[in-house]
């Protein structure tokens, strides 16, 4: 039996259903490891007091002879922006510090029905704004590979928890790379599904046309198991798609023979980190040896993606955050009139990054500026979508690095918002285009993990899983573990 701290979901699930490992034993092992190491990592904002009771319930269901799905009895971490009844949903912000959600998010409801155990809520950048988890109002998360480095963000708590062996899987949210980039920086797998694949009901909104709920795990197979459980049409999210469900994971071929991979020439340019480039190109060679064909593709508007992305993000976030008015939930600082209450509540309880973005969004949407900013950005988004449509006529998947650098030092970029934004350069396009993207560990630079990003056609997560599962069957990057003192 593998050490319990690094068991995969697939393996733990098999042992659980064979009655060789109880959910209580597994959950207790996770809790013990968190108690010992999370004071130095700070992946969790809250640990559930009912986790062991949920584990006992899964054990009881199994004992009663019930046929249980793959996630039954498996402890998971959930990003603090996804509602889990009974646990605080802080969104990493003082304004929601004590917020108790009234209901479960759809993704959580589906995991609950499958018998998963909710171990706790993970740390994140405030309202999913950032790239390092340093924007959390409750202190940063540290990278388990090097505690002086950031774990990436905004789902840094979820990624660090999986990498540190605290939980075998977690949910995060991805607006511009917030699942994939921390997965890359922490050496785990992270998936941003196709927009509309996973319901956003119960996900606190950041930028609604870009937000996705996505899973993180140590293997591609585990990531696929989580995705399979949470995806599918939900009438409570009007943008949820009625596209047919993904076919069973067991039907995904184990080879990559004949799959066509595209390398976007605009991404592999001079100035790109040479070591990261080498790791990614090694991974491409590995897939080639497995029978994949590789060619160059062009995404002509790549250069404008980041600017378009951030304008859309600022506008949508500033609109979404207007619901925090000091009246309905969260922090409230009453003033002499309504305006003073709004200004005081929001001035006191939002951190610097939400404030910057609320102002940038208010500016871009204000009278006389709309056409030059928001409208322009949406037009460029259309051009970027067309670039991908064109590229996917020739190839089945596009390969890039997930992040332009490995994990950087805490504090290094925190006072320079623009530099922080530039760290999302490879991940934001998938959100603009609405396509799926996945990060898979593909090497190490300075003893820090590197991520390979695979992007696919809309609703074709299965091809990403196929490539990723094949890659992990012939490499062992995903088997390396950080050492926690």
């Amino acid at each position, binding site marked *: 039996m593998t050490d319990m701290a690094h068991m995969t979901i697939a393996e733990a699930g098999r042992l659980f259903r064979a009655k060789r490992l109880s959910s209580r034993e597994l959950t207790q092992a996770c809790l013990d490891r968190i108690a010992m190491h999370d004071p130095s990592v700070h992946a969790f904002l809250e640990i559930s007091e009912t986790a062991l009771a949920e584990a006992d319930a899964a054990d009881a269901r199994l004992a009663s002879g019930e046929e249980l799905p793959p996630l039954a009895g498996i402890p998971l971490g959930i990003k603090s922006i996804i509602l889990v009844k009974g646990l605080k949903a802080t969104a990493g912000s003082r304004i929601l510090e004590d917020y108790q959600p009234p209901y479960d998010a759809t993704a959580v409801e589906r995991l609950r029905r499958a018998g998963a155990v909710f171990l706790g809520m993970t740390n994140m950048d405030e309202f999913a704004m950032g790239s390092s988890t340093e924007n959390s109002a409750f202190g940063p998360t540290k990278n388990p590979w090097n505690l002086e480095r950031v774990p990436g963000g905004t789902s840094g708590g979820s990624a660090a928890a999986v990498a540190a062996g605290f939980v075998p899987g977690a949910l995060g949210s991805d607006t511009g790379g917030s699942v994939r980039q921390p997965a890359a920086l922490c050496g785990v797998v992270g998936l941003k599904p196709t927009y509309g694949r996973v319901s956003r009901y119960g996900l606190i909104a950041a930028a609604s046309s870009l937000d996705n709920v996505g899973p993180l795990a140590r293997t591609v197979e585990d990531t696929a198991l989580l995705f399979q459980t949470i995806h599918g049409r939900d009438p409570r999210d009007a*943008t949820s798609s009625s596209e047919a469900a993904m076919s069973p994971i067991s039907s995904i071929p184990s080879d990559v023979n004949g799959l066509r991979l595209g390398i976007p020439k605009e991404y592999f340019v001079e100035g790109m980190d040479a070591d990261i480039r080498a790791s990614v190109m090694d991974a491409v060679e590995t897939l080639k040896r497995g029978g994949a064909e590789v060619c160059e593709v062009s995404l002509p508007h790549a250069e404008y993606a980041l600017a*378009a992305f951030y304008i859309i993000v600022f506008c949508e976030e500033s609109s979404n955050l207007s619901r925090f008015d000091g009246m309905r939930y969260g922090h409230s600082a009453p003033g002499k009139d309504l*305006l003073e209450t709004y200004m005081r509540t929001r001035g006191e309880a939002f951190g610097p990054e939400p404030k910057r973005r609320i102002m940038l969004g208010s500016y871009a949407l204000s009278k006389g500026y709309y056409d030059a900013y928001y409208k322009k950005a949406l037009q460029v988004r259309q051009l970027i979508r067309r670039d991908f449509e064109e590229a996917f006529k020739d190839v089945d998947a596009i390969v890039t690095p997930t992040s332009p650098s490995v994990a950087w030092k805490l504090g290094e970029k925190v006072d320079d918002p623009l530099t922080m934004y530039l760290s999302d350069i490879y991940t934001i396009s998938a959100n603009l285009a609405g396509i799926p993207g996945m990060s898979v560990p593909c090497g190490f630079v300075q003893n820090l993990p590197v991520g390979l990003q695979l992007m696919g056609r809309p609703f074709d997560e299965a091809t990403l899983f196929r490539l990723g599962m094949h890659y992990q069957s012939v490499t062992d990057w995903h088997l390396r573990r950080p050492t926690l003192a």
Partner: protein
Amino acid sequence: MQLTTEEVRRIATLGRLELTEDEVERYRTQLGSVLEYVAKLQEVDTKGIEEAAYGSVAEIAALRLDEAVRSDADTHTRLLEAFPSRQGNLLEVQAVFADRSVE
């Protein structure tokens, strides 16, 4: 590019944010550098290009009947409890219009 103090104060008010003097000074430079970066979009010729306003690339059935769905008692209680100010089941909010008859 730097914004003026007045510009920062104006957009902070639009965004309903009370800022300290220090914050105004800091955001002047930070917001300016971001606006300078995103200005590069103006280079792109977008004449006649429709806006991609939605996240979804597939057709979505967004229209449905506008039906009120009753929540369960637990959800109901939790929604009420989230309100910062209330008396029993009565939710307290601030007046939207001032009563000028007494002035």
